[in-house]
């Protein structure tokens, strides 16, 4: 039950990495060469490049098969389409990787003592496993099941087949061994939405793709002069935490950004 020195040391370390944000990817901060970790440096650099940032995003926690699984899965949950980038393009897989490695993935702020009877649905989360452990077990089992059914891992299945597998997880029809498939699906969907809509400081919502999709301006301005304009859309170029901290936008006397209003949407 107790955490080993190692894992709490690791957590502390990863926290400090998270604190500096997406501008310094985990592996770079580690001082590690992404090449030795992941092999195809160029490929990764290409896949994970953040617009306007010098360094590529890289994975710090997930194994290569897990990276492939997550990228494929989030791309089905929020697909790229005529409305714009999807979760994969927005870096949601990197967001999930960072979250699983940190306080969220290890349940640092959650009650973790046993016993762990299953309980009723009304009693909520009662797994002995942390989100980090749930993802690892579920991803392995889903891939194993895909391999035995289709001779291919999840990420190599056609889109329609992936959608069917995800729907079956969601409905509970696709049962897993270590955790409930439906439960894992719920976590995956919630984390995907978090990664798509959270501030880019956490590695997802790249180029503020999630915010642009819905018309959310991110860090708020003072709306005192606009709040009572009825039925008048306020279309602002979204502002992130980094934009303010790096002085990319002007701010007012309270530190609220001065939004740049766009003449029309898009």
């Amino acid at each position, binding site marked *: 039950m107790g955490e080993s020195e190692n894992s709490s040391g690791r957590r502390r370390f990863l926290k400090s990495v998270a604190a500096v944000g997406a501008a310094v990817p985990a592996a770079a901060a580690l001082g590690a060469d992404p090449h030795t970790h992941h092999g195809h440096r160029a490929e990764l650099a290409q896949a994970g490049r953040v617009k306007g940032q010098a360094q590529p995003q890289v994975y710090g926690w997930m194994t290569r098969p897990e990276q492939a699984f997550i990228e494929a899965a989030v791309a089905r949950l929020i697909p790229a389409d005529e409305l714009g980038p999807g979760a994969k393009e927005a870096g949601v897989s990197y967001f999930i990787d960072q979250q699983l490695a940190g306080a969220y993935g290890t*349940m640092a702020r959650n009650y973790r003592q046993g016993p762990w009877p299953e*309980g009723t649905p*009304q*009693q*909520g989360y*009662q797994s002995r496993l942390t989100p980090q452990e749930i993802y690892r077990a579920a991803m392995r089992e889903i891939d194993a099941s895909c391999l035995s059914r289709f001779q291919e891992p999840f990420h190599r299945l056609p889109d329609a087949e992936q959608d069917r597998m995800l729907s079956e997880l969601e409905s509970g029809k696709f049962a897993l061994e270590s955790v409930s498939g439906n439960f894992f699906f719920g976590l995956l969907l919630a984390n995907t939405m978090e990664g798509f809509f959270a501030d880019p400081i956490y590695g997802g919502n790249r180029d503020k793709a999630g*915010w642009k999709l819905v*018309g959310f301006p991110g860090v708020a301005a003072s*709306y005192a002069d606009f709040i009572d304009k009825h039925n008048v859309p306020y279309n602002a170029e979204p502002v992130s935490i980094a934009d303010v901290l790096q002085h990319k936008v002007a701010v007012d006397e309270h530190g609220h950004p001065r939004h740049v209003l766009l003449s029309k949407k898009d």
Partner: protein
Amino acid sequence: MATKLKPVDVVVIGVGVTGTILAKELAESGLKVVGIERGQMRDTFPDFQMPNAHDELKYQRRHDLMQDLSRETLTFRNNNHETALPMRYLGSFKPGEGVGGAGVHWGTQTWRFSPWDFETRSRTIARYGKNHLAEDCTSQDWGVTYEELEPHFDMFERVYWVCGKAGNLNGRIVPGGNPHEGPRSREYPLPPLKVTHAAALFTKAAQSLGYKPFPTPVSTPSMVYTNPYGVTMNACVYCGYCEGFACEMASKGSPQTTVMPVLMKNRYFELRTLANVIRINLDPAKKRAVGVTYVDSRGREFEQPAELVLLASYVFNNVRLMLQSGIGKPYDPVANTGVVGRNYAYQTPSSVNLFFDDRHFNSFMGAGGLGMAVDEFNSDNFDHAGLGFIGGGFIRSVSSGSRPIEVRPLPSGTPRWGSAWKKATAHYFNRTFGLALQGACQSYRGNYLDLDPTYRDAYGLPLLRMTFDRHDNEHKMSVYITNKAAEIAKAAGPSKMNVNPRTGRYTIVPYQSTHNTGGAVMGNDPSTSAVNRYLQSWDVPNVFVIGASAFPQNGGYNPTDTVGALTYWALDAIKNRYLKRPGPIAA
């Protein structure tokens, strides 16, 4: 071994909304007051600053301002045939931790309970007869009336700079306000906030049905204001990061922005943070508290002797510390005896979502409680004969600011993911608003708090165990009032709407409200109340238990204005009666 410290006059356990007011008023009267808080010191500067104050993941999803459950949580079950299991994630409610308590991240709606709420049992019987109450319903009168609390409501609203429009001034009904509220001695300290598009549509729709909409009272100032303690607040800028967040502007009523600037300058007050109180120590006869024991951040135990102990650690720890310390007789639902833990209740919220194809709401703008409300279906404001329930709730339009991780409702039937989800989300994010209903909840014999036999906190002490479910009364009420809200919604002309009454078993999973009540309820009869009408323990008279733990049942309004009023009411009794002659102050 605990280190014994120098005695003080007063120990306040928990430095949140109630704790800061208690400490401020008593330190000012020259008593040596120590405030003991389990969490960190926090203040507008440097803790709640731009731009990081606007981080939805950190605050709404990872609960940075709220209770750290790795050290302490509670266990829950729907009824006593089940085994209670720990709440491992925050969900249904989000208690605070750290200086300011939940008053840092609350939603700022500042409602008075109605006169009926304080006399639920006697007024129900008088109007509908005894059979109108369910047999196992233990709702009761508070032992204090609205009229007695009125000056104390007034004080709290001035300290917390509440904006609103009076509807009943000394018995005279005033247009534009809530005609159903109890009489106010004077107008709100501040005028209402601005009116959003959502609120304007709601107002017109409600008026078309003959209801009397009024601005929801809120503790987010509409203009720069100086409170009776001489503390000045900024005007709210409607940034939309309010409930669940701390205010970077000092524009939200909270301990930090209303009371602490004065409290922290008082040399009779001492704040101790990262100090977790584990027990109130009693004399051998268990008739007198001699002080408290707490554990500091380095694991050291200290004993702080005090003449007066004020429990202000929110509902859960107010009850838990009483049970842990042996103050009052624990409630036993089988024998139906005892009082500590009795009458736990929890509100019955419900909602309606309105979706438009031709209107735009800038839904991300707003302030915690911003909106308009109607009160026709609250308390006993409508005839309950033949309805099979008592109580009700207000109906209000919500403009609290939608952040996209948490708040992006879609018409029911929309897929939860994939391209169809994406399209609907892009379309509706700014074309929707909601109506929220704060349904009441009666108390029942089977709903209570006690100590868990299995699970323990980080100090090895038993967790609090919650046994709770809503009853028929609550479900019928929720369906009835939510249908009324749906009629108003329909009159506003949406292209689609979701109607979400609260039925079925209570679950600890999704957020509902942090409006937990009871467990150390007030009253005039020591066999059905843990504290007297002045919130003084019947058994240990130098302990007062302050907070919503004193509510005998839950009303159809958010609790904090009533919690604030009870705090000033108890303070008045402490200063003017107890301190003059320490001992029991109610017969």
